[in-house]
């Protein structure tokens, strides 16, 4: 008798339902299977209408984030066997996001917030090509590398109570990405981002719950990024009193040597 596991999956069809409900599926428990494999099995063999997002199935695209037994997880990285034989595994769409259908959530809010933090290199001057590439030492790379690992899976938003309670809160991933660019010595846009984010819906909305860091599959530590950003913003605020007239952002080192 092959091992089995039961998945209780949230179903929601807007043309038919007012609210989500759970549907149970029995799935073979293969040793190497992850939750995503179970979902694919169900869609393949049991119910083709099951709707969910996935892509790379190896933890780098960030598409398959869902709540598994109440925890935000990448379903391609969560092994069924860790729940034990004959266990019930509850699969729901990512928390704190609007549900479009079944396990698919609407991400437009996040994308707007992401754009607002300007996650790209901002330059005040554009050196001519003849000067060559921007050079960066391993130490300079190390300053921001951790925050660059974000795959935009949004598990951190599903974990952050502030993101759930306050729709306007920019949120962990976006703030960590802003900090990734602030710390990149090729970037000259810290002041521009700070003007946007030193705001009650930006960094000051964060209360350092720390859940975002705990659930992040890429160990980005967005909570740490935000606290560092707060310190920087606070020092900047102090400076704005000591040098009130257009204090220049002096954090940038020359990117060329």
């Amino acid at each position, binding site marked *: 008798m092959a091992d089995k596991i039961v998945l209780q999956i949230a179903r929601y069809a807007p043309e038919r339902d007012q*609210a989500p409900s759970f549907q149970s599926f029995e799935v073979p428990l293969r040793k190497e299977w992850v939750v995503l494999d179970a979902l694919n099995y169900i869609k393949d063999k049991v119910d083709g209408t099951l709707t969910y997002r996935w892509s790379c199935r190896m933890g780098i695209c960030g598409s398959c984030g869902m709540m598994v037994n*109440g925890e935000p997880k990448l379903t391609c990285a969560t092994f069924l066997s860790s729940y034990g034989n004959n266990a019930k595994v509850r699969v729901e769409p990512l928390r704190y996001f609007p549900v479009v259908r079944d396990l698919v959530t609407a991400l437009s809010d996040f994308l707007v917030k992401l754009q607002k933090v300007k996650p790209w290199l901002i330059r005040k001057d554009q050196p001519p090509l003849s000067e060559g590439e921007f050079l960066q030492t391993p130490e300079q790379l190390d300053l921001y590398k951790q925050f660059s690992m974000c795959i935009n899976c949004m598990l951190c938003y599903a974990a952050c109570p502030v993101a759930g309670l306050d729709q306007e809160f920019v949120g962990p991933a976006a703030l960590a990405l802003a900090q990734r660019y602030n710390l990149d010595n090729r970037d000259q846009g810290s002041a521009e981002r700070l003007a946007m984010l030193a705001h009650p819906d930006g960094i000051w909305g964060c209360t350092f719950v720390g*859940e975002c860091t705990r659930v992040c599959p890429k160990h980005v530590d967005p909570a740490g990024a935000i606290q560092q950003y707060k310190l920087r913003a606070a020092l900047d605020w102090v400076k704005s009193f000591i040098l009130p007239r257009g204090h220049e952002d002096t954090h940038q080192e020359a990117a060329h040597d």
Partner: protein
Amino acid sequence: MTETITDQAARTEFHPRWYRERVSTWWWLGEWHYLKFILRELSSISVAWFVGLTLFQLRALSHGPETYARFTDRLQSPVMLALNAIAFCFVLFHAITWFNLAPRAMPVRMGGKRVPEFLVAAPNYALWIVVSAFVGWLLLRTP
């Protein structure tokens, strides 16, 4: 306007109705990690309690030895002892979570590599112990 894309989309006539669950007032009871966070935040009440206690203590001191003796007697009542024991636990909880989390706001780099967090937290603990020992000595020494 502060409309988000989500709001606009939900109101379009031919757009599917998205389901949005309202976050319960008791969201913080739903998970141990959330509860731990709220307890950490509520430790601030114990800190305020201690400051209040200190203010009463200062007032009692300024009113003379009899008033102060009455104050210390009141501290021996079971209710006050229980409240202070609870407050002490919360204050300890605050101190430990504070020292453990503070390094996250200030990454220390030496020789191009990041110093591990417990090494950054350690001087805080050391300072705590030294200051506490000094205060204890000041209060307990018989001049």
